[in-house]
């Protein structure tokens, strides 16, 4: 975790410096004179993050006698990273299909692709679950709650 802390600390330092030096001045106007600046609180928070990230970096980089493999191990396992990439891909594909073909195709593809990337290979289960979920949603919103969601 120590290495992860050091890396996240460095990232946060860079992020807060970029926000303070570039993003906040360009994205928030100084505001009318005589009033408190709208930048005040965002700047304060970024300064807070910058100051708090420094001890994370220092503690993460300092080697202690009991420094071992656990300190350098990644907190994110390979399986979790793969799951993140796969589910991100499912969302990207489903949103693209939604934009191209509409809600039904977008929602169906989300369920089908998620089942496939999670290891489900039985065609009947894939089709049945997709139909049940979409019909259930339609019944819940349009019949039970009496409202349109699109």
């Amino acid at each position, binding site marked *: 975790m120590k290495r992860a802390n050091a890396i996240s600390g460095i990232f946060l330092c860079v992020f807060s410096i970029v926000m303070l030096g570039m993003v906040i001045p360009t994205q928030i106007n100084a505001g009318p004179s005589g009033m*408190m600046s709208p930048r005040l*609180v965002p700047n304060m928070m970024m300064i*807070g993050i910058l100051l708090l990230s420094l001890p*994370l970096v220092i503690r993460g980089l300092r080697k202690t006698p009991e420094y071992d493999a656990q300190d350098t191990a990644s907190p994110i396992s390979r399986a979790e990273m793969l799951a993140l990439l796969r589910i991100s891909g499912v969302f990207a594909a489903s949103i693209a299909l939604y934009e191209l073909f509409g809600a039904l195709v977008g929602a169906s593809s989300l*369920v089908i692709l998620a089942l496939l990337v999670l290891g489900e290979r039985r065609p009947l289960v894939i089709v049945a679950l997709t139909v049940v979920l979409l019909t259930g949603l339609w019944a819940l919103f349009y019949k039970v709650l009496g409202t349109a969601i699109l």
Partner: protein
Amino acid sequence: MEHLILGVGDVFGGTTLLWVAVGVSLGYVLGAIPGLGKAIGVAVSIPLTFYLEPVSALGMLIGIAKGSAAGSAVSAILLNTPGEPSSAPTAFDGYPLARQGKGQKALKMALFASVTGDFVSTIILILLAAPLARYALLIGPVELCAILVFSLVFIGGLSGNSLTKGLIAACFGIFFATVGLETETFVARLTFGYLELEDGISLVPMAIGMLAVAEMVVQAGNLNTLDRETANLRDSSDPRDRTVTQDELRRCAPVIARGTVIGTAVGILPGLGASVGSFLSYGETRRVSATPAKYGTGMIEGVAAAESADNAVVPSSLIPLFALGIPGSVIAAILIAAFILHGLTPGPLMFQQQPRMVAGLYVSMLCASAILLVIGLLGQRLFSQIVHVPLRLVIPGVLLFCCVGSFMETGSVFSIYIMLGFALLGFLARKLDFSFVTFLIGFVIGPKLELSFRQSLQLLNHDASNLLAHPIALLFLFAALVFVVLSGRATARRSGQTPPTTQENCNPKGGNQP
């Protein structure tokens, strides 16, 4: 009293009870699925309540929270996989009981303990919130700002393993709350030209992304372990192993009473959360036991201790929300969005402005406790089958609901982008141990904190020495400072020791922090 009678009429006269029962059932099912805790359940279900009457909607959401707090014991006992960390102590003795074929007995005891803890804590909420709110009305902007700062520091220090990371998460939460039009000058802040951001970032897609989608990604990375545990489940053929005996009830009564008191007290203090309550209760029960060595091998008292405290935390954690408008837990932070959507602004003024709705809410909370007992007893065997459903069939449905819930908030795909962005942030926060609880609470109280800070600067004439005229504010700021110093010392001591292994007996896959 007059409002209470009207509230009873509102709850029993319409469809409110039905929606509370739906909420409790849904919560129980969600809680039983590993990784889907009460916060996720409530966040995903808020859009379902858009078209309900306010009391029905809020009763349903609180029913979900109560139901899933009780339901999380199912996966803890049967799979050794607590749906939430707060159910981890339940697994210490619940899972050994299940392996002895006494899973149904453990589930029944967990239900009795949950309902008792929940009901008593709800009564304490009703008795305490309104009197405390009267004092809260005397608080000015300077004092409020100091209290909010203290709360954030306290929550940041206690809801994760590192105060530094907790405070970073709080700063991020407040920072994201500043997105949108600034309320005094109407200057757009950090909108990057997107009109959708001018009203600020909506809490619903943010919470759904950070809690539900991020958790589903973590669960997707751990599918095999869960499937192996599910395959090992068996029930005993002896009927005595499937019921709670009179002797066991008698032995567990004082344990449940102690757990309820501990859970209620922990819930009132912002930031401590259900995990602290259940671990404290379990630890105390084991400490006072004549046979502490037997704990962890299948002691029914262990299940009762953990579950009574776990469930007592939910209602009492609403006390700071109702009395002061400060969310003390992630569930309270999410409920704020639902309360405001339905026209009830949590805080001391709600008792004066909408006493009838508050009374209706109290009555529906009490009814939820009774419904929880009935639904738990009738449907426990059925609900316990839910843990047999492979997670790969659950995750796609949850992801679909997440998208629908986020979409409904604005009717735009932009909300889904917001959800996905915060899902990534939530995933990283979980894995890098940054408290997303503190983040969400910082986001919710951010606007109030900014407003009271600006007012305080004007009231104090930009001179810190004027703080001397506000002793309550000074007291809270001093308490925050003392807490930072004490936490720093504790961290320094911990860094020289082996990391704690409080959950070594179980396999907690739930990522919700207390």
